[in-house]
């Protein structure tokens, strides 16, 4: 197992499956998944800016599956599941949204997918950077011929009245 998170969260055992999507590795389907992820994030209590960042992270993760694990094949299976989990943090036990992406492609050496300099920008090169920047925890493992990517994020607690940041 390759642990990617800078700061992995301590996940408790309780989890509740909210939604499970099965799709093929067709890039044109990503817009439909983004819509579902955005709605799921809002339903799970995330504010608009956080919901947008989760949408971006999941979109980038799926793009990586299509480009790297499936090498551009458009007919391979991908499962995306959304669960509520509880995690331990400095503030105590906290609810979080867990998104798990499963594919049957070749194992991807995520540690090699690093941010690129301006002179070496190619499609997908920034994707993992976006995922790491936006999620609390990112873990990857390859078991039984499948890749499992698990993303976890907790909603940022609301600030006291009068200090709320504006969102457009």
């Amino acid at each position, binding site marked *: 197992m390759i642990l990617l998170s800078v700061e992995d969260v301590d996940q408790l055992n309780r989890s509740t499956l909210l939604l499970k999507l099965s799709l093929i590795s067709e890039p044109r389907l990503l817009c439909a998944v983004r819509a579902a992820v955005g709605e799921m994030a809002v339903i799970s209590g995330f504010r608009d800016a956080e919901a947008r960042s989760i949408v*971006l992270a999941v979109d980038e993760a799926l793009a990586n599956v299509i480009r790297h694990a499936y090498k551009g094949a458009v007919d391979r299976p991908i499962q995306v599941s959304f669960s509520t989990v509880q995690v331990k943090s400095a503030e105590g036990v906290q609810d979080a949204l867990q998104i798990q992406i499963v594919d049957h492609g070749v194992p991807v050496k995520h540690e090699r997918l690093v941010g690129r300099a301006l002179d070496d920008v190619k*499609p997908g090169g920034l994707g993992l950077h976006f995922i790491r920047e936006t999620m609390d925890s990112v873990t990857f493992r390859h078991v039984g011929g499948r890749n499992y990517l698990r993303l976890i994020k907790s909603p940022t607690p609301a600030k006291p009245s009068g200090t709320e940041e504006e969102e457009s």
Partner: protein
Amino acid sequence: MQAITRRLAKISVIDISGDIDLASSPQLRAALLKELKDSKPSRLVLNLTGVRYIDSSGIASLIEGLKAARDAKVRYVLFGLNQTVREVMQLSKLVKVFEIVDNEEQAVAG
């Protein structure tokens, strides 16, 4: 995604709309490089007002356009970035690489 080009003397303005993602970013890249090659403008302006979403492959396509414009000594200006696009730009830490203005008037002036 749609990319429609207008030409104002030696300035090319590309109106881009829709989502720029893994599916559509090759189309954007091709449109940018074709305009630079075919029209040889003095300035290439990208109107992103209609862009609802952009991912890392979209940012990479914009960067490729920028690099090609620099090579051809063409000024490359963006305007009309909404909140979603700005957030992704900032996350990429490449926002300062681009010349970004508020509107088309500023983009074609000077």
